[in-house]
């Protein structure tokens, strides 16, 4: 699957030029890669996170939240020299967002979207990193972001498309797609997610191993990548606008949401979804800019927090009058999602303590935070498919001898979701082992199997870390 990479790779278009430049840049240096560079970090996630709404989604639907794949989580500690290492507070937020997304997609609890608006947080983190990276020529930044995003997607697309075709799906004959050549052209979105990739609404049979909506679930998460991609492409323009007119740029996405997200203006189809995603999370993305540019810290804190909570209160109030099919699920209520996420992100970013390392009891989560940040794209892309995959595995339990009794199976029935939740993490771990290294290749690092930061620490103490870490 890696082969996909060459064309886009460094070699290809902008050959290399850009990259070197950053590598030398001390700031980046640390991470040998980008890992350390916040900018990168973000991205990956960014990609992931985007998902917010899945348009299509369905049942399980993908919640938007996940962060995408940011490549970078690297813990780059060592890098000494230089610039401050990764901000572990932001890393922690990204990890929480990922866990929240998986939990939401699995349990489907609407209140999770209120408890922690993962997608908004992911886009804000990505926006902040993007603003930081845009100190460099825009074209190079866009290219490198896209390059880091696509190879992991290609691996995922290859697997999913193979499964769909093996399941007998023929895009040219799928009535839901309108058939014909357009469906085939749409498949291009599996390579570069500029639009919504096509997928069969039903595939396989009810009694098959996977639920017959697995394709919907699997492809549903791709909305995030689409949104992320568009945000990246639009960032130079957004940042330019933000620097000339910060407040209008910051608030414009909310205003746009009020227009396209409330039915005042209805844009049909996937275009509508794309614009709605862009509007809903655009505020958070630009907030990332504001954070990076220091706008947030220039406002007296009491004003920022008070206004943010008023915006959030508006979001809740709006939601209370526009409950969706799942009640308080903000993914179904664009204006509430936009305002609630916006206010939430303002408060999170205002209190951003800039940890060099996780404090106190959080320190024990250090490795998992590092790993999830390093593999955010992989985790995001695969989690929904893996959630589906837990079902056939768990169903084997019913065949165990001691499960014969009605009580035992009733007990299993009632706790099924909990077992799914426990099982999905090892599966995600397997996916990280199997496909995670692609993220390293995409970032032009040497591939690592399980980048949870342990090596890097050793390396760090040793030489500045680059080499050691990478290998790790």
């Amino acid at each position, binding site marked *: 699957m890696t082969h996909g990479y060459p064309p886009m790779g460094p070699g290809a278009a902008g050959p290399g030029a850009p990259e070197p430049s950053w590598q030398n840049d001390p700031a980046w240096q640390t991470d040998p890669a980008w890992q350390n560079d916040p900018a990168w970090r973000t991205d990956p996630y960014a990609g992931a996170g985007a998902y917010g709404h899945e348009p299509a989604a369905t049942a399980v639907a993908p919640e938007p939240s996940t962060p995408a794949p940011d490549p970078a989580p690297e813990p780059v500690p060592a890098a000494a020299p230089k610039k401050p290492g990764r901000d572990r507070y932001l890393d922690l937020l990204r990890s929480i967002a990922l866990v929240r997304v998986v939990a939401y997609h699995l349990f489907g609890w609407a209140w999770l979207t209120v408890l922690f608006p993962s997608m908004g947080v992911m886009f804000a983190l990505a926006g902040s990193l993007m603003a930081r990276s845009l100190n460099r020529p825009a074209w190079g930044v866009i290219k490198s972001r896209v390059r880091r995003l696509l190879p992991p997607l290609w691996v995922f697309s290859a697997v999913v498309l193979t499964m769909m075709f093996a399941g007998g799906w023929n895009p040219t004959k799928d009535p839901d797609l309108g058939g014909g050549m357009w469906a085939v052209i749409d498949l291009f979105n599996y390579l570069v997610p500029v639009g919504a990739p096509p997928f069969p609404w039903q595939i396989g049979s009810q009694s098959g191993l996977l639920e017959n909506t697995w394709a919907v679930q699997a492809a549903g998460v791709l909305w995030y990548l689409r949104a992320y991609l568009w945000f990246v492409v639009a960032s130079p323009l957004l940042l330019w606008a933000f620097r000339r007119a910060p407040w209008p740029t910051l608030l414009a996405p909310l205003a746009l949401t009020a227009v396209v997200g409330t039915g005042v203006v209805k844009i049909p189809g996937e275009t509508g979804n794309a614009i709605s995603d862009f509007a809903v999370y655009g505020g958070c993305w630009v907030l990332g800019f504001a954070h990076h540019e220091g706008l947030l810290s220039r406002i*007296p*804190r*009491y*004003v920022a*927090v*008070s*206004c943010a*909570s*008023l915006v959030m209160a508006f979001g809740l109030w709006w939601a*209370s009058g526009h409950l969706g099919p799942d009640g308080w699920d903000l993914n179904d209520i664009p204006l509430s999602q936009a305002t609630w996420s916006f206010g939430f992100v303002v408060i999170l970013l205002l209190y951003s303590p800039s940890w060099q390392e996780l404090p106190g009891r959080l320190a024990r989560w250090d490795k998992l935070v590092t790993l999830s940040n390093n593999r955010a794209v992989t985790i995001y892309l695969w989690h929904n498919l893996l959630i589906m995959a837990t079902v056939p595995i768990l169903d084997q339990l019913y065949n165990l001898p001691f499960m014969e009794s009605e009580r035992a199976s009733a007990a299993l029935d009632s706790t099924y979701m909990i077992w799914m939740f426990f099982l999905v993490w090892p599966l995600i771990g397997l996916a990280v082992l199997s496909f995670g290294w692609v993220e390293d290749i995409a970032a032009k690092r040497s591939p690592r199997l399980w980048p949870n930061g342990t090596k890097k620490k050793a390396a760090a103490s040793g030489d500045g870390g680059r080499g050691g870490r990478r290998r790790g």
Partner: protein
Amino acid sequence: MASRTRRRGAEHGARGGSSRRHAPEHRARGAAPRRRRVPMRLLLPCLVLVALMAMLMLRGYVHSEILADHRIRPEAATDKVPEKILEGGPVIDTRGGRAETLSLRDHRLVLTFDDGPDPEWTPKVLDVLKKHHAHAVFFVTGTMASRYPELVRRMVEEGHEVGLHTFNHPDLSYQSKKRIDWELSQNQLAITGAAGIRTSLFRPPYSSFADAMDNASWPITEYIGQRGYLTVVNNTDSEDWQKPGVDEIIRRATPKGGKGAIVLMHDSGGDRHQTVQALDRFLPDLQAKGYKFGNLTEALGAPSAHSQVTGLDLWKGKAWIFLVRASDNITGVLVVGLAVIGFLVISRFVLMLLLSGIHARRVRRKGFRWGPPVTEPVTVLVPAYNEAKCIENTVRSLMASEHPIEVIVVDDGSSDGTARIVEAMGLPNVRVVRQLNAGKPAALNRGLANASYDIIVMMDGDTVFEPATVRELVQPFGDPRVGAVAGNAKVGNRDSLIGAWQHIEYVMGFNLDRRMYDILRCMPTIPGAVGAFRRSALERVGGMSDDTLAEDTDITMAMHRDGWRVVYAENARAWTEAPESVQQLWSQRYRWSYGTMQAIWKHRRALVEKGPSGRFGRVGLPLVSLFMVLAPLLAPLIDVFLIYGLIFGPTQKTVVAWLGVLAIQLVCAAYAFRLDKERMTHLISLPLQQILYRQLMYVVLLQSWITALTGGRLRWQKLRRTGVVEAPGGPVPSQRSAGTRDGDRRPVG
């Protein structure tokens, strides 16, 4: 713990002088006991709140505000219901896999009453039945049985049968098996608690005749049979709930041709006077025609449907009834409490607006003077404990004073060179007096002994005066009756959230509360950050005392009792730095509120004394106790009802009511800001203050109450002695600042 204390000290130090405190005794008083109290101060209020919430929810639950399900399923097909059921009698027996029905013999009538017991109509129904020696069956819901257990007991005692009608009357075809089990067992629990029995009769909500069974309700009936219940539907439906008139009810209830029947009536759910009147005619008429009115098992000639319950199940039932009772009673009390607190809050606001308006008008009147202008020099006392960071600013601000002053800095055993800093400034009219660390009251007394003039201004080591502050502060002494003057403390660091909240609090405290207290002549506190005293008055009451944690409140009350007026000088502004962390704020407020309680207790005898002391004791003390000590105790009710209302409804009304109270507060705050000519922007943080800060304040007060009620006073005295002993040796000043930021700039009373 040691390390914790140390770390805290360090932190404060780093932050700047904000939190110093004098005196070991504070450490002893504050720190040591606090260690033990830590869990208590959080645990107890939390437990109380959780218990209140649980009681409210229990009440909401038995009043069908929670978990109620009002859906009714439309009719469904009947192809899966056995023919013999559809055509059979009204008593359906599906126990043990059977599917049989029973009918009544001719001239047997069984009256059934659904949805009760009702406190008004059920007793009347029972009276009529008794009058005519008839028995009946009451299908009671769990909610009503829980609330009116004595009626269920009476039914059983008078020979009627009771049956289950579910706990809160949902359409069972929408419910899971789990919920059905629960509806039955909870209903049974209530009956057991009320009358000490179990019943084997059941009537499904929204049921009618046997031939109305359909594919949705039949499986439920089968399932309920498996649980051992007889399902009882009816033959004739009086439809009394439609209130069709007495004659019509009788017509509908009467079976044709002398047949036996189960008659459906209702003793609850609205006005049932027609039912009662109809019964009073129906019973004798039909009895005259040879009908017998028995309960179901009498009519069927079967053993009673009741069985006695003993042991654990009986006690569970009784406990349930007791809890429901208690929750009803407690809720009643809570509602009264809410009304009281609402009344207090509103009347306090009204009083404040009124009196502060009067005060402002009075002192701003053209040509207003307290008396002849005061131009004599005054002494400024600056007690300082480890104020190295701030003391220079403080002293310099005094040097700009427009009023002639002498400055005495009393260094209370600082370890950071506070005294040296002042001395190094080499200012002519500034003296430094050093003492071993002995506490703020002792430092003030020492300064007093060294003072050269008759008017004493007291300030904190981290407070900054404006050039006019001292002059404005001492002008009221032109009136010989004035013994002490409170200045206007302002928060300097008001741009953080917690700073903005305190800013609002200070502005309201100084511009509303203090003006009100000034007019009422019972201002409870001269802020330590900016206050002035007549020396002769101080000497008459014996100087500062360390009897309480709030020496400023203590001395102010003593002044009142001695007959001096205590007034507010609005233009004497002093700038202070408010606590920036919740921890610091907590400690400060704990000291204030506990100190206030101590001071009130210390001066309690004023209540019965004569003269000015008695006046203060009978007007000032109760007022201060009410507003500062008792009202905050009820304040959590606002939040309890807010949360309950938000979650269980009526959400809209709750939000509107809350916003209404917020608007009143906003008006008051805006008025206070206007009086002080402050910019209104900080008012934007008022809504958040109401849902985060206010709670912190009353939790602190609750903690003070707990300390006071659990023997804090005893502990205190013992510790105080220890403190004094330790003081000289005075180990390091590892100050915990918290408790300490001198409390002195209390905005309120």
